[in-house]
């Protein structure tokens, strides 16, 4: 069982791994997966209840969902495209979680990353492809890092809780981005935003990025379903984060602060600095999600993103118990759900059903006692989270 934020129980401390037989290993994996899988199944059953309540057919709806998301090549491509930002945003939440911080600002950090990548993509010219893409990633990651680092610094030096500041930063980011690409007022009193593309007409968006900034396509399903290499970048980043968390001094200090900031302070760790760096790294991950969205999928920045991704990312991360590799799989589950929902809509079921299903999943993950009670599953004692989430300084 992976560690939870701010727990101080001995079971969550890193412990030497004794030799285990294959059977014991499989059993451990089964135990780890049991609650998440049962949570998803139960949430889907509750979702079926909601479908019935609206007078629709849940079997037909779920069939359409699976067919539209997994069984067709283009559906699968779209599912993977939707999985990519969820992996990186889920990592942005999970990484902060490990450091005892609640990052709800993945959406804002993603927007900043998207905008920065778009700017680099169309403004910087004359670079070879590899350099242009690298520069785009650097700019997007930096923008995301700054956008998360500010709430981190506010947390460290003034005690302003990151839950509220990151949510506010989501709104601020979306308004700034809207302004950057806005077309100005019709009477010309208010000039267009600095990143507005006047040739795009009524659609408010940035100019298109140059060909040299576009991410290479890994798999191409005609006519218009290109899988860019973003998903592979996301998976590599997940592995890197796993190594940083478990094999570096920085990762060790981060987890130590996450478990008990006071103990970490006594051990000589600069908790304030650690708080800012943790948030900045988390923000750079979400920023990279934005880069992939701009350079891989859209080719420009357009203000059509909802503010929901930050909350999706929380569910993705918690479903995987904040484990970087687990996040890949839970992100795929949610990417599939999101993609399938568009097909499910044809059977008369609104896409918002997925948000309700997500709420149920999160509820069961956070309160596994409900699942244990429903399915009579016995679990190790003390898996219930004993967290504290006050507003104070750390």
């Amino acid at each position, binding site marked *: 069982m992976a560690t939870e934020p701010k727990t101080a129980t001995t079971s969550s401390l890193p412990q030497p791994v004794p030799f285990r037989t294959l059977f014991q290993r499989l059993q451990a994996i089964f135990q780890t997966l049991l609650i998440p899988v049962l949570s998803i199944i139960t949430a889907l059953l509750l979702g079926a209840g909601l479908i019935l309540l609206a007078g629709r057919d849940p079997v037909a709806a779920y069939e359409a969902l699976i067919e539209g998301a997994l069984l067709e090549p283009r559906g699968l491509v779209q599912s993977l495209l939707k999985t990519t930002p969820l992996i990186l945003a889920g990592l942005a939440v999970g990484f902060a979680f490990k450091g005892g911080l609640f990052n709800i600002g993945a959406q804002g950090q993603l927007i900043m990353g998207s905008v920065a990548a778009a700017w680099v993509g169309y403004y910087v010219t004359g670079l070879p492809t590899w350099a242009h893409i690298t520069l785009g990633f650097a700019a997007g990651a930096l923008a995301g890092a700054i956008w998360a680092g500010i709430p981190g610094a506010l947390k460290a030096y003034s005690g302003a809780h990151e*839950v509220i500041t990151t949510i*506010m930063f989501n*709104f*601020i980011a979306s308004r700034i981005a809207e*302004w950057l690409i806005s077309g100005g007022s019709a009477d010309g009193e208010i000039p267009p935003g600095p990143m507005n593309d006047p040739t795009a007409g009524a659609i408010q968006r940035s100019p298109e990025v140059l060909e040299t900034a576009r991410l290479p396509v890994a798999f191409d399903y005609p006519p218009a379903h290109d899988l860019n290499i973003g998903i592979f970048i996301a998976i590599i980043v997940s592995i890197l984060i796993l190594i940083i968390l478990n094999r570096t001094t920085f990762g060790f200090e981060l987890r130590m602060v996450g478990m008990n900031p006071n103990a970490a302070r006594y051990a000589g760790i600069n908790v304030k600095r650690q708080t800012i760096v943790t948030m900045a790294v988390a923000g750079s991950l979400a920023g990279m999600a934005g880069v992939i969205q701009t350079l891989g999928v859209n080719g420009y920045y357009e203000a059509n993103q909802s503010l929901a991704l930050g909350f999706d990312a929380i569910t993705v991360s918690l479903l995987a118990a904040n484990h970087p590799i687990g996040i890949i799989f839970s992100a795929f589950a949610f990417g599939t759900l999101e993609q399938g929902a568009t097909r499910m809509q044809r059977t008369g079921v*609104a896409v918002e059903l997925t*948000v309700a299903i997500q709420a149920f999943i999160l509820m069961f993950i*956070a309160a596994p006692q409900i699942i244990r009670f429903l399915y009579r599953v016995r679990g190790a004692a003390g898996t219930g989270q*004993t967290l504290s989430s006050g*507003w104070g300084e750390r």
Partner: protein
Amino acid sequence: MGTIEFVAIFATLSATIRQAIPITLGAMSGISSERSGIVNIGIEGMMLISAFTGYMMNAYLSGMDSLALLGAEIALDSTLRLALSVAVGLLTGGMMGLLHALLCIQFKVDHIISGVVINLLATGISGYFYDPQAETEGKIPELVQNPWPDGHFLNRVGVVLFDKDVITYITFILVALMTFWLFSTVWGLRTRSIGENPRAADTLGINVYRLQYTNLFLSGTLAGLAGVYLTLADVGVFERNMVAGKGFIALAVMIFGKWHPVGALGGALLFGFLSALQSQLQFFGINVPHQLVSLLPYAVTVVVLAGFVGQARPPAHVGQAYEVEGQ
């Protein structure tokens, strides 16, 4: 100063009150919850789902002449229709409050995660069952008409003070009642004691869990009132995600007001003013992109939090699970 500016000043003040009402009620919801030791970031969702159910009830009852209740036919006039809609909204909020309490107390879920569950649930359920074709026979009317006619020198003052619905006036009364409740009643004293030191309160025979459940129901109801204000009094219709962060701003306002109802009202009026500026600025002849003005309330929330949270002391035990002894 030109006439247009003069008119715009009073229009801004009137809009300030309009914008401050849901934030004030949200902050009252937060105070009720946090003073008893439970962090409530689900206010946003509680407002949204209540706004939704209140509105749908209004739409459902619209077009009905009478209501069959317990075998008796009751004539359905607009007052009864709106009263029932408000009641449904309040009850929905209360139930969400109880769900939050259940997750936090019974299942010891982290309060913030539980709040996220509430918010997601509200977004999902309201978005899923929302019917864009729903129509209503109108919203809550203004309680008192402006008694001063156009041209009268007090007309502009009247615009600010009157032409408001009943929930607006109730909100101001609620702020006074909450202050009295918190500092002058046994219930309020006990609420504060379990927020500060539940162990001591428990030892003195106070049923900590029962009080937390009660206060979370109250908290949900207050958030529910904020929600129905949006759909039944202010905007008049439901839109997806219409709360737009007001629940989170309410929490910041609560911290700004140091967990005191009157302080929170002051903070809410400040934010109401900033939100009102957005729609009124153009009347002053100031041309600023509206996107940049609309981020003001959010930016000020951050500044306020950073500037005030250091001095503000939260209830000592807020956000921590409490385990009753001997269980």
